[in-house]
């Protein structure tokens, strides 16, 4: 098993195939991070590619101070955050988050009837990703790094360049925010379905 530092040095001396080793080692994490950040598998694929490409291009700036995965994570979160900010600026006024949610929910409901289990888990996935998308980028990032990527406070501190105390309080706040978004969304859904039930009753 090649030492990672050696692999990196090989890439730095022009061996592109060595870089493929780094890609296969980290592609899952990088892709999942991008996926959770954006909620879109297409965007995630593009952003993951972008992150690795920039890592290859900027490898000479990796100073071997932190671990390579920390450096890569940092680069990836920045690529994702930039993408989300750009998207924010480009979103047209007419499409609000709620409209999008309604549309998706209608799509969900109009499909062929699926076995109960599948419906529940699809819905749950959709709910949590929708809620995540409503979090600001920083809260989203830190929650993903801790809960999904299972990194320690210290590792997260290195990636985001924060001290452990700050990491701790930000994670707590992000969890709190996510909880309130989920219950807000839950209430909205309950309201919508009760209204729907009322309308349906009304037709008889």
């Amino acid at each position, binding site marked *: 098993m090649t030492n990672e530092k050696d692999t990196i040095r090989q890439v730095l001396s022009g061996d592109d195939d060595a870089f493929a080793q780094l890609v296969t080692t980290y*592609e899952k994490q990088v892709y999942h991070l991008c996926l959770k950040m954006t909620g879109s598998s297409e965007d995630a694929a593009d952003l993951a590619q972008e992150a690795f*490409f920039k890592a*290859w291009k*900027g490898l*000479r*700036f990796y100073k071997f101070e932190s671990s390579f995965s920390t450096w890569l994570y940092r680069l990836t979160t920045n690529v994702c955050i930039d993408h989300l900010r750009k998207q924010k600026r480009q979103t047209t006024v007419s499409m609000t988050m709620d409209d999008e949610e309604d549309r998706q929910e209608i799509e969900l409901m109009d499909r062929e009837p699926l076995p109960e289990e599948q419906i529940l888990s699809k819905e749950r996935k959709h709910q*949590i990703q929708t809620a995540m998308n409503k979090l600001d980028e920083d809260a989203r990032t830190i929650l993903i790094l801790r809960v999904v990527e299972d990194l320690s406070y210290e590792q997260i501190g290195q990636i985001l360049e924060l001290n452990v105390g700050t990491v701790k309080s930000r994670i707590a706040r992000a969890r709190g925010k996510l*909880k309130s978004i989920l219950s807000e969304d839950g209430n909205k859904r309950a309201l919508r379905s009760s209204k729907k039930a009322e309308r349906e009753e009304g037709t008889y």
Partner: protein
Amino acid sequence: MNCEEMLALISGHMDGEISQEEQLRLREHLAECVSCNQLLKELQTNDALLAEMEEELPIGLCDAIMARIRNERSRTKRNFRIWSSLTASAAAVALLLGAGTLLLPKGSSDGSVIGIAEPQEAESVVYCAEKSLSDTISFDCAAEEAVIEEAAMEDAVEEAAPAEAPMEQKLKENAYQEPQMLADRLGGVVVYFNEAVEKLQIYALQMTEDGVQYYLLNDAAEAEELCQAYGGVLFWPEETTSQGAYALVHGG
């Protein structure tokens, strides 16, 4: 103990990152507080939901990445062959920008080579007629990087420039996103130039963690001076967090 404190304690407990003493305090509190118990359960459920989504990796992600890298590699090799046939003779300072346009700042100072040697190009070597030493100079023609090296080629500029004009146009359309993003990222004012500014070479060149190269200026006043003197555009961060100042060159 207020709600916010409890949230921090519960959250820290979920991550196994609170002290023994804090654990004790938490346990005592949970023994009497129903809503905090509920909170803990809810947060644990949400965490589980978040963590459970194991999506499949898209097929061919690694291949797509490697293909892009190899493509980039061969593109720069091709451009380098053009470059070395043009640099056959003398030595001056050239700045390679974005779409491959060669620009020469007027009057190079001493004969030293200011080169950013790219490890990926380590095997590229250029022999300069005016120097007895062979220098390892390498460059990359990609839209995001600029390399400064010495060559003397008024003629080459004229030959190279016209062919690249249409590309440059397209690049300009999206150009303003990058300086704004940089200003937001760094929390300081960014002065943005469409073309190389020789004066910038005295400043330290840095790179962001996602590959954008920029110069570190001393303060905002300096950014404004450069802006006025060389026809740049200033970008301020949405939230001013520091007094930092930076310079960004298109394609750099």
